[in-house]
């Protein structure tokens, strides 16, 4: 029972984790991309169309990553290269994605829609681990994007803390002027970081439409991009913190459905609030270095 909702929490937390890891990287480089929800939605849509056309999920995954990069480049062109206000561009991206995927969806599948049933990502049983008693079959037979997301956590932690390139990303976010004085092309580097994050947000969308939902409907992301934004703050801009936040949110979501299903006679809204309340409470905990990258959200223009 507990293992089951841990597994459900892992599945529900994966799209958030993927998107939040990308956003973490972007924010560490000094850019605040609140267009995450829209980027995910475009990824989910691209994944749905490609997987449906091909009849297998893999092209969907690739299309989602590519679409995510495209949206990120669009965002970056306006917000980084041209120095437009990041919040406004992010908002525009969200609106564009919701309207654009909706219009395209109706173009492709008819005005009243068809309930799309997509080829879903297969479960992969990890050798040895999936044979562990109780936990094994549930936690270690997930789809590939779950493993990818989990693997990215230590990779990103190592990258940011221990590599020269990671240091460069952090310099971009904390002191772009200093980075530039050392000869780093601030805007170009931020664009590269954005593209990587865009691919991750696209994959988050794919995890949603090709696994968690197995379908696409307009607005299918249902606010998960905004949750991922909160998770980055919750995680104190650290990959391990982001992992904890995503899992907390996923498990709390799974838990509240279990509570409702066991027919505890309380207003269901209380249960729906649970993941958000827990996230808010966790934000209040004083813990470690709780500071945002110094240059976060400020557009950078050369002297």
């Amino acid at each position, binding site marked *: *029972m507990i293992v*089951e909702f841990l597994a*459900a929490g892992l*599945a*529900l937390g994966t*799209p958030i984790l993927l998107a939040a890891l990308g956003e973490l990287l972007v924010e560490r480089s000094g850019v605040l991309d609140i267009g995450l929800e829209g980027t995910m939605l475009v990824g989910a849509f691209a994944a749905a169309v490609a997987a449906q056309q091909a009849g297998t999920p893999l092209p969907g995954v690739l299309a989602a990553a590519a679409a995510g990069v495209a949206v990120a480049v*669009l965002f970056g*062109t*306006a917000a980084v290269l*041209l*120095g*437009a*206000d990041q919040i*406004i*561009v992010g*908002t*525009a*991206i*969200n*609106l*564009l994605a919701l*309207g*654009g995927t*909706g*219009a395209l*969806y*109706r173009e492709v*599948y*008819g*005005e*009243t*829609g*068809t*309930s*799309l*049933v997509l080829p879903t990502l297969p479960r992969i049983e990890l050798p040895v681990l999936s044979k562990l008693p109780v936990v094994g079959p549930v936690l270690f037979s997930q789809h590939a994007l779950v493993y990818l997301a989990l693997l990215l956590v230590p990779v990103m932690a190592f990258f940011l803390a221990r590599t020269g390139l990671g240091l460069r990303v952090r310099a971009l976010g904390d002191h772009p002027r200093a980075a530039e004085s050392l000869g780093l092309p601030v805007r170009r580097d931020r664009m590269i970081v954005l593209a990587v994050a865009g691919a991750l947000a696209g994959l988050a969308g794919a995890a*949603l439409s090709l696994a*968690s*939902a*197995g*379908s696409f*409907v*307009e*607005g*299918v992301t*249902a*606010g998960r991009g905004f949750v991922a934004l909160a998770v980055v703050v919750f995680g104190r801009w650290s990959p391990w913190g982001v992992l904890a936040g995503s899992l907390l949110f996923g498990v709390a*979501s*799974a838990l509240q*459905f*279990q509570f*409702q*299903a*066991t*027919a505890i006679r309380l207003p*269901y*809204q209380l249960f*729906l609030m649970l993941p958000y309340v827990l996230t808010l409470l966790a934000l209040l905990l004083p813990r470690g270095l709780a500071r945002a990258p110094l240059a976060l959200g400020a*557009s950078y*223009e050369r002297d």
Partner: protein
Amino acid sequence: MSRAALRVAAFAASLAFGFAAACTQGGGAAKKDDAFRVALLTPGPVSDGGWNASAYEGLQRIAKELGAETSNVQTTSPAEFEQTFRDYARQGYDLVIGHGFEYQDAAMKVGAQYPDTAFLVSSGGVSAKNVASLEFELDEATYLAGLVAASMSKTGKAGCVGGIQLPVIKTTFDGFEAGARSVRPDFKVSTVYVGSFEDVAGAKAATDALIAQGADFVLHNADAAGIGVFQAAKAGGALAFGTNKDQAPVAPDTVLASAVIDMPKAFVQVAREVKEKTFAGRVVKEGFATGCVDFTWNPALLSRVPADLRAKVDDARAKIASGALKVRP
């Protein structure tokens, strides 16, 4: 921020709004004096293959059968309801339909200000001189679904998955439970609300939870998110009931039957009254008796239903239609 950057941001924003506007059709056509014009406001995308899609089909039927000029728009917040109603009324539309319970207050308020426009709230309980509501007694059909579930269930448990707890959603679940208890007084029905009508992943997780609790039949009333219910039911070996439209084609091996609303028929009836100037504000009850609500089996799965149960369902349906059996307490 440079001027060029501002221009790009403005372009991106206008593109976004342009797309949003592109999703709403028609509108701008100038009023011809004799033209019969009908507008539709939906709370969600008309591509949901369910509640909103059925309204769009109704609007198209009105256009075809009554030669109406039509327009539709998706509204997302209560603030937009009144504004959009008022816009259409001011443009001289003959009939404006608010597709759902949530439009009641706005219809009453704007209706009082624009007496020459007829307002229709699909699924509501309010009326005024120029305001009518359709009240779909879909619980008549979900009562039969409950009866079937309780008769066929091996576990003695079933689940309901709703989008948001609106009264019209809850009554369908109450009907389901009443139908189930009519054959098995100890039958257990648990209800989970997802909190959204678009969150397919949430609906799937909610259904997983219900199945983990032992439910082997699931009824959904979650519009577009309902597809997640069918997927989870399929994976968990449970059977499901569709709502609003015949959803057997969506999941042919999982949907045993659907509680169906014939929205186009109901819309055309009211629109014809408006066109022929016989319209009077009232609450129109639509159920089995009027032919606008139906309980439709999935032919592909019908062989799983014992013949005596089918006969029992037909019998209950006839009694509900004649008024001999009351679904609501």
